[in-house]
């Protein structure tokens, strides 16, 4: 589904991703862990199409096609979803309007007919229950005045609405209490299927108690320095990142 080969990314002449390789197949869950500043969010943003970063080398294939050529909206239509580490507040744009536009764009792309207002609201109601999101939140502007936890739940809610093929969740777990964490995990697990895949970026092992990854990768200084199964996450939890850094530097 996704093949990343020797990817290099810079911002303002500073190289952040320094030769990154990863292959994700349908049905898999990958966890990417790593200390702050190692480049996790940069990687996620580049995959979603943020143009402030400059790709200086390597390639990314998504379903066999060059992903980096495509606009962010095209990637989204083809099933890519990024759960933002810091979701953006958009004053004046209502959640309903925002999501209706997004859902209908997607349906247009898939050759489905546009949802009527009532069908859309019904769909919203169902998905809201799934993520246990406070129902008044959807009457507000996108993320405006949402608490940290509400913003994260809102990312999962959007994911549930858009039903992506490949979701990349960038620290959707950080700053969440145990209930919210369960909701986030639940959202990911509900979408899990043979046709879909997820990349879960996380700092802590905690989330991985709920979302069982098939692979765990450690990103350090723009490169994957270690890969393994879910036990690697436990090891990191126990020993911290120091030993990884030491190993990587020698």
């Amino acid at each position: 589904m996704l093949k990343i080969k020797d990817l290099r990314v810079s911002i303002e002449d500073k190289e952040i991703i320094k030769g990154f390789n990863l292959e994700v197949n349908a049905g898999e869950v990958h966890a990417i862990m790593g200390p702050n500043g190692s480049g996790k969010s940069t990687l996620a943003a580049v995959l979603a199409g943020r143009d402030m970063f400059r790709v200086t080398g390597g390639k990314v294939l998504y379903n066999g096609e060059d992903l980096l050529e495509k606009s962010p909206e095209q990637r989204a239509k083809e099933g890519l979803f990024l759960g933002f580490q810091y979701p953006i507040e958009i004053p004046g744009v209502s959640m309903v309007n925002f999501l209706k536009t997004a859902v209908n764009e997607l349906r247009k792309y898939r050759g489905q007919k546009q949802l009527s207002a009532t069908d859309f609201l019904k769909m919203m109601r169902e998905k809201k229950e799934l993520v246990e999101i406070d129902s008044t939140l959807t009457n507000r502007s996108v993320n405006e005045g949402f608490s940290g936890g509400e913003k994260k739940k809102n990312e999962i809610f959007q994911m549930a609405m858009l039903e992506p093929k490949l979701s990349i969740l960038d620290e959707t777990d950080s700053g969440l209490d145990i209930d919210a964490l369960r909701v986030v995990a639940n959202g990911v697990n509900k979408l899990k299927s043979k046709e879909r895949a997820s990349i879960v970026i996380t700092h802590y092992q905690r989330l991985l108690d709920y979302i069982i990854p098939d692979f765990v990768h450690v990103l350090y200084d723009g490169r994957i320095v270690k890969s393994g199964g879910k036990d690697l996450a436990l090891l990191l939890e126990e020993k911290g990142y120091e030993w990884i850094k030491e190993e990587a530097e020698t």
Partner: protein
Amino acid sequence: MSTVKEKKDIKGYLADLFQNNRDLIDSGSSPPLNRHREKALSLFRKLGLPSRKSENYRYAPLGDLFEKEFAHSFNVKKVSFNIHDIFKCDIPDLDTNLILLVNGKYYNSENPLREIDGGIVVGSMAKAATEMPEIFEKYYNSMAGDTGDGLVAMNTAFAQDGVFIYIPKGSVLKKPLQVVNIMIHETDLMAQHRNLIIAEENSSARVVVCDHTLSANSFLSNNVTEIFAAPRAYFSMCKIQNEHNGSAQVSHTFVKQQRESNVFTNTISLHGGFIRNNVFARLDDEGCENHTLGLYLTDKKQYIDNYVKIDHAQPGCHSNQLFKGVLDDQASGSFNGIILVRENAQKTNAYQANNNILLTDDARINSRPQLEIYADDVKCSHGSTVGQLDQNALFYMRSRGIPEREARLLLMYAFAYEVIGRIDVKPLRNRIDDLVNKRLRGELSRCNNCVMSCG
């Protein structure tokens, strides 16, 4: 009439134009209006046209606007047309809802003054001046006459007609009144009309004004409106400027408010090559409330200039200015907002905000908030921003599959809605909402549709 203008002496040219056509101007108007002309002309001779040296017009490229060759509305025969041919839509209740000015003159000559909702008088200014002389004399030019602006004096000298609205004590105008200003002529035309609105004690009324051009000629209009709000009167006016880009408009609005009155004006500028809006409001007694709002959505080479002065002359008044604009292409403009709080005006609350989004590197705006505060117990604030669309918000939306164009529109629309959302009549708000949406989408090239009556 002379056809060659001395470029340097445009003031002299306009004064001569007046003198040479005095009979024509008078005969197309009425004696009470005519009696104000001579004095206004001397004032115009004294003041001249505003130049860039005059502080108030520092940024406005009035330049050669007045030097162009125009026919003048006093010289133009009544254009006759069937309104239904021109407006594509069906306008119900023409006689009660709608007032039409064509090239500055009241159109319905069979019925120049009419009464609606028991006692409210609406109609032709020239007619009202003779029919209601006491009211007319008490108010006409009582604010505009003190101006230091030569354009206002010129209007008083030349204006033959316009809209007159009298809302007597305690009366309520149920449906909003719609005034449609149409400019239509087979050559380039200059017109100057004059409106007078008197809202007596405890009255309530809402007016919508739409400016349209219906032929492709150059137009120049220089209009003056005086609004008087008596104690506890409520008056709101929403003006939609939608002339083609070959037209220029200078619009002066004077507002005088008495105790606990509430006046709301909202000017929405969509199309028009050169637009200058002046709003002067004097809060002349305690407890007044004033809301002066504006929204401008411009592109190509449009120029939009809003100049607002709120004069807090008495204690305990509240004023709020909110102007927002989105400028595309090489559009440019200026905002000047002055809050004057006089020595005696304690417990004043006065707010002002001007926010702009520039969509290109070539678009420009000058934003100048000015506070002149001579009282000590006041709450004032002003803020002015000039920025671009939020790139993070754009990316967020696009990452959900929303195309860039749509994402930009959603952001622009969200920005504009703060002004639209304050329109107090829901159907009108929805109409304007729709117009703004169309404007942002570039689907409103020349809108002949009235905001109130058609879709």
